[in-house]
């Protein structure tokens, strides 16, 4: 397997420096995929590099599966973020243990109970945890069968299992719970697992209804917001108006005197109120906001100048791909500047957490993506040994990356220490989430690419970005810790290395190219805190690449889809492109005024899921309003676990990416962030929804799981951009498209 630059991925990963090599095995015949993951960069340690998935970092089988008289418990270090991953992981474990899914109790991330799998991020959950469970479950089942075979003195090949019971040739029966007494599950997994014919799958590849949905449609306690602990108090924080503001005066006594207020916490620039009732806490917060006096804080840049500023701020330049020798041939060229504004995660439920300091130990219920890194950050902030802090994942509103979850958990932890013995729930207000969540970085990219005699030539691409991975590697990464009288400082920013990439994720086209000159300028002195949001830089990089392919094709009079196929040598890449081409009837173009059609393709990170998308839309000739009539996509994510779960993720990604690409940008001026509510940060509503979305799933039975959640963000943005160019006859390269005034 070699990439488009003629280097094999392992060499590339080494060349990029410090990247961890990941061996990935789904089936007994090893097929290796290499990845330096968002997870690996965040506090997990590779103990067994030859094992598949997260067994590399958690090699003991009993870290994943325990069987006792009370049943089977399966553990994952990943969390349910609303993607359905909990149900999918259960399907994998039940399939390989050969038990009904209902007989398993599946526990998600909890620092007291589950493996440390770092963050639930980067479309890695099925890739990491699913692969670990696929192998660990089969190995445990094999050990159980072997134990029964030894006990009955028969050949293990003659035994079968059904519903958690081992059956022998003479009618012998032994439950898993009995068999487990004869084995020790506390041992390293093996590199090879028992084979299973994919035709025998009863759960993998089948759509199991999600476990969590019935509670969510009926008012069950489904979210951390719904927790009610005995005697629980309610807290609200009071944040400065802008970063860098210093609290100059605050009349604590006037707030303490308010009805229901139990405590007012003031520590440097950190302010919070704790009250008996939630409404009392909100009213106290409002009063406190009125009496708190702050200094001016850091200067906020001019929104109109942000892209010029990004290019001037101090940055480190990272070579991403510099291969081959430029031909220097004239041919057709396309040169352009592509921009993106700051985006918000925009969770519908603002961040929330519950914490309880009791008997010298702190428990935090949190919708974080990474309970272990969060625990380390909170322990450092509170100067507690990590063993005395427990973080339990409890679902929140969808986050799509690093939103306020960790910061709210740190708030709850700080406040719980001030009301020892009593649980405290802190809920951020909408304006606090919008002003203080880490944004997705504004970015600038510049492309200069050529086409000579039907071949793409001399691909030059330079990008400027602030960090996409300000995860919790120390206490200073937690916003509340920065506000304390003795503040913590954030650890230096480090980009995620290729081939996963950071702002440079998917900056390298998958297309065959004679030469590349691709570099990232990593800006670390940033006006706003930025961190991970679904697909990181891939959103704009794929938008820019696919716009360039279309422009070059059009200039040279070549069909854009045909040009893509000419430069794609991976048959799975070609398959998704061809499926979408045929399904939408490319190059069909409506004669209706303002109608356009656009196509795009990418393989996420060039190592994960494949996705091609075509979009048909209409641009209103007077007001520029965009109506999406039809979206057709084809995806290949390897072995599919849950077809309906995959479809749900892809449909959602298409709608969310349409919202980002067409409508979204954080508004700000010298006074601060203006997008404090949904009127200041409009997102797609039902009336702007695509009329029809068709998702084609290209299953690859027996192939490695590649992950699904983030693969469509870039291709959808790019297909929209190409369709708008097709509709208007002009190329629009400044996102968001409907708020962009200048064509390129």
């Amino acid at each position, binding site marked *: 397997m070699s990439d488009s630059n003629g280097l094999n991925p392992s060499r590339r990963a080494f060349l990029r420096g410090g990247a961890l090599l990941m061996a990935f095995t789904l089936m007994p015949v090893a097929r290796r995929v290499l990845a330096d993951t968002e997870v690996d960069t965040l506090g997990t340690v590779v103990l067994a590099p030859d094992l598949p998935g997260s067994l590399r970092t958690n090699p003991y089988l009993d870290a994943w599966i325990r069987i006792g008289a009370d049943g089977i418990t399966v553990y994952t270090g990943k969390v349910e973020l*609303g993607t359905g991953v909990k149900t999918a992981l259960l399907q994998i474990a039940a399939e390989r243990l050969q038990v009904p899914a209902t007989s398993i109790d599946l526990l998600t991330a909890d620092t007291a109970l589950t493996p440390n799998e770092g963050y639930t991020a980067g479309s890695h959950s099925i890739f990491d945890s699913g692969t670990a469970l696929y192998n660990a479950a089969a190995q445990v089942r094999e050990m159980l069968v072997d134990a029964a075979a030894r006990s009955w003195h028969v050949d293990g090949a003659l035994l079968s299992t059904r519903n958690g019971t081992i059956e022998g040739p003479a009618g012998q029966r032994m439950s898993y719970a009995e068999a487990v007494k004869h084995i020790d599950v506390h041992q390293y997994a093996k590199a090879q697992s028992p084979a299973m014919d994919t035709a025998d799958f009863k759960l993998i590849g089948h759509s199991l209804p999600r476990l969590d*949905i019935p509670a*969510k449609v009926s008012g069950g306690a489904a979210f951390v917001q719904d927790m009610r602990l005995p005697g629980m108090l309610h807290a609200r924080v009071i944040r400065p108006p802008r970063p860098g503001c210093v609290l100059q005066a605050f009349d604590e006594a006037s707030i303490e005197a308010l009805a229901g207020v139990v405590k007012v916490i003031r520590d440097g620039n950190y302010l919070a109120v704790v009250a008996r009732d939630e409404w009392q806490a909100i009213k106290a917060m409002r009063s406190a906001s009125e009496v708190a006096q702050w200094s001016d804080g850091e200067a906020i840049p001019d929104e109109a100048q942000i892209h010029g500023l990004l290019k001037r701020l101090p940055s480190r330049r990272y070579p991403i791909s510099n291969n081959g020798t430029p031909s220097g041939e004239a041919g057709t060229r396309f040169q352009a500047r592509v921009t993106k504004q700051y985006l918000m995660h925009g969770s*519908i439920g603002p961040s929330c957490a519950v914490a309880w300091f009791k008997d010298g130990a702190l428990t935090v219920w949190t919708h974080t993506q990474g309970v272990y890194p969060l625990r380390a950050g909170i322990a450092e902030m509170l100067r507690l040994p990590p063993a005395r802090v427990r973080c339990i994942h409890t679902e929140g509103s969808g986050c799509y990356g690093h939103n306020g979850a960790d910061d709210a958990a740190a708030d709850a932890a700080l406040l719980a220490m001030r009301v020892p013995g009593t649980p405290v729930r802190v809920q951020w207000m*909408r304006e606090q989430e919008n002003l203080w969540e880490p944004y997705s970085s504004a970015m600038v990219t510049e492309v200069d690419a050529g086409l000579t005699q039907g071949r793409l030539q001399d691909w030059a691409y330079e990008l400027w970005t602030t960090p996409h991975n300000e995860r919790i590697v120390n206490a200073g990464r937690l916003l509340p810790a920065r506000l304390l009288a003795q503040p913590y400082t954030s650890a230096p920013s480090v980009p995620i290395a290729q081939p996963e990439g950071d702002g440079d994720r998917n900056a390298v086209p998958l297309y065959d190219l004679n030469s590349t000159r691709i570099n990232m300028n990593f800006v670390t002195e940033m006006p706003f805190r930025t961190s991970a949001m679904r697909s990181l830089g891939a959103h704009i990089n794929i938008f820019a690449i696919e716009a360039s392919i279309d422009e070059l094709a059009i200039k040279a009079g070549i069909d854009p889809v045909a040009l893509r196929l000419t430069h794609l040598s991976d048959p799975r890449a070609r398959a998704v492109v061809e499926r979408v081409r045929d399904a939408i009837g490319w190059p069909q173009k409506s004669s209706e005024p303002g109608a356009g059609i656009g196509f795009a393709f990418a393989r996420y990170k060039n190592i994960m899921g494949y996705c091609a998308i075509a979009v048909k839309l209409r641009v209103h000739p007077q007001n520029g309003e965009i109506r999406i009539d039809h979206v057709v996509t084809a995806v290949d994510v390897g072995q599919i676990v849950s077809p309906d779960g995959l479809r*749900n993720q892809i449909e959602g990604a298409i*709608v969310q990416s349409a919202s980002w690409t067409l409508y979204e940008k954080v508004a700000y001026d010298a006074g601060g962030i203006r997008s404090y509510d949904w009127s200041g940060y409009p997102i797609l509503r039902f009336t702007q929804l695509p009329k029809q979305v068709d998702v084609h799933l290209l299953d690859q039975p027996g192939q490695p799981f590649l992950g699904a959640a983030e693969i469509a963000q870039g291709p959808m943005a790019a297909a929209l951009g190409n369709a708008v160019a097709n509709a208007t006859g002009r190329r629009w390269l400044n996102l968001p498209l409907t708020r962009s005034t200048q064509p390129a």
Partner: protein
Amino acid sequence: MSQIILNVNGAVQPLELEPDMPLLYALRNHLNLNGAKYGCGFGQCGACTVIVDDQPVFACLTPCAGLDGKKIRTVESLGSAEKPGPLQAAFIEKQAAQCGYCIAGMLMRAQALLERNRHPDETTIREHMAGNLCRCGTHLRIIEAIKQVAGQNGSLT
């Protein structure tokens, strides 16, 4: 504090509340009902949508004072996880949720429409639902679930 009588899901509840308290907090903290969610507090996202008499309202903006004599319904009134009502069953069948935080509000806004117009067409559904936000992009399935019930006859509870 004053005594406020709320009629919620058919039960009359005398409560000691601050009269300016939005209905949302009374439902969640004084009646232990999880369905209505805090999303924005500005009536912009619909996560808190409940039905008052026959209208969908934003519980985050509606003060408890003034609800005397009105019939308040939350998603809990439609059925339970074990015995879901028709609209809840359609949401489960269509797997019309991702994170699910907005879903209870979606259900109540859709329920209000179906009670008024038993067979709305898709355009009507899209326009009616525009007051509620979903960030996961589950809109298409939400519409499918509502359309399924709109295409049926029979009771909505």
